[in-house]
């Protein structure tokens, strides 16, 4: 099956990753896959306000996912938070928290801001991938990076890196996956649409492989920042 943009079912869109793109932030990264561009900026650890949200045992991770008003396909995205963005902020937090060790920073907060300047499906995955790089760039203790890939099913076939048109077509299934490579554990798995048990297993196998490819890109981008010219 050829896809709408001429890719093979297991082919990703072109990828670009860069670390340290926002000088003001303690850590930052950009991740682009096809037409989806995510920027992540990390601030902190810093004092947490409101104070009742402080945790005296460890630092708190706080993520904000946001699509910019002009980021869609010409239709203006309403600025500000929505039910959807709040949900994605929470799943992003949950995807990143297992690798992050904040026990050295009691009562503090680590803010991760994910902004999407351009969207063409797979935004939460691009956001998580960028955020993991930004956290590493900020110098946090992490068990590993988190790599993420949006998998899916369309007309009975498993597809990698779903694009906007595929995402919106009838009967499409959307499965974002995030992987912690060194533990071989999945930290994000959502499902939107019908899929059989066997297919889901197959999809996860392919998804893990694709996440490892993303992982390599992340590692290279982080090392590139300190490369001597």
């Amino acid at each position, binding site marked *: 099956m050829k896809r709408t943009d001429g890719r093979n079912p297991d082919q990703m869109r072109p990828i670009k990753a860069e670390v340290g793109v926002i000088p003001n932030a303690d850590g930052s990264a950009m991740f682009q896959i096809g037409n989806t561009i995510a920027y992540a900026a990390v601030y902190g650890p810093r004092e947490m306000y409101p104070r009742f949200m402080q945790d005296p045992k460890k*630092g708190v991770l706080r993520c904000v996912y946001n699509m910019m008003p002009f980021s869609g396909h010409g239709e203006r995205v309403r600025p500000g938070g929505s039910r959807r963005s709040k949900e994605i902020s929470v799943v992003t937090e949950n995807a990143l928290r297992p*690798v992050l060790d904040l026990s050295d920073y009691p009562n503090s907060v680590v803010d991760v801001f994910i902004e999407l300047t351009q969207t063409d499906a797979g935004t939460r995955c691009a956001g998580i991938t960028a955020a993991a790089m930004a956290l590493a760039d*900020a110098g*946090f203790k*992490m068990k590993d990076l988190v790599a993420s890939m949006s998998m899916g099913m369309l007309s009975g076939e498993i597809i990698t890196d779903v694009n906007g048109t595929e995402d919106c077509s009838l009967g499409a299934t959307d499965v974002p996956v995030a992987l912690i490579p060194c533990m071989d554990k999945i930290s994000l798995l959502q499902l939107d649409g019908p899929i059989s048990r066997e297919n889901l297993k197959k999809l996860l196998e392919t998804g893990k492989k694709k996440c490892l490819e993303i992982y390599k890109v992340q590692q290279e981008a982080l090392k590139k920042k*300190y490369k001597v010219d």
Partner: protein
Amino acid sequence: MTDKLKIKNKEIAVPGEVLAEGMGYVPSRGIRRADDKLIAEQLGMISIEGKVIKLIPLTGVYIPKVGDKIIAKVIDVLMTGWRLDTRSPYSAVLSMKDATSEFIQRGADLTQYFALGDFVLTKITNVTSQKLVDVSMKGPGLRKLRGGRIVKVNPHKVPRVIGKEGSMVVMLKQATGCNIMVGQNGLIWIDGTPEAEVIAEKAIIKIESEAHLSGLTDRIKAFLEKQGVKVAPEQKKAPVKEIKKKITGGKK
């Protein structure tokens, strides 16, 4: 089992990267062991000393440590002291008792000692598990910083700004004629003529951006000379032998 090293000395490691396999290698700071593998926990530069692998972090915020001399900013005046911003997630408290040996009248206006926005050079005396920080002004050189300017660098780059046995900061002081104080929290105070301050600030920013590369002292020296200031030839400390010779006149 054979031990296998997967990274070279002075290379950059990213979190989750496998650095070595086999029980022959010993993990040090910033590295953990999982089964027989050594895995990096942080972004940083790898330093291999024999069988010990260490990770030197390149980024991150400052975390207060007892004994550190830091430059802090007064952000609040309390009932019995001052609250200082240490440029970390945790603010420090300077109590009246540790601030001055003068007698302070009950209800006196504390801003006449340290006003809001003042920078002070202080020493951390205590840090609790919950990161409550106490600082003191009692000690040689600890004082309020008047005039000059403050430059911020990453706290992990401070050792490079200071240099081996203070060589870098001595060179900067001598070349620019500025008075320079380096706080462990990455705040640096420079005081001198405006022109010299600008050169010193530029040099410090250059040190920060090239801290992980070798040959730093030579490059900074060249930079300073290009800026039109004279750098005295490096004063090598005479080895102990020669000093002995001087004292004894070469006789045994």
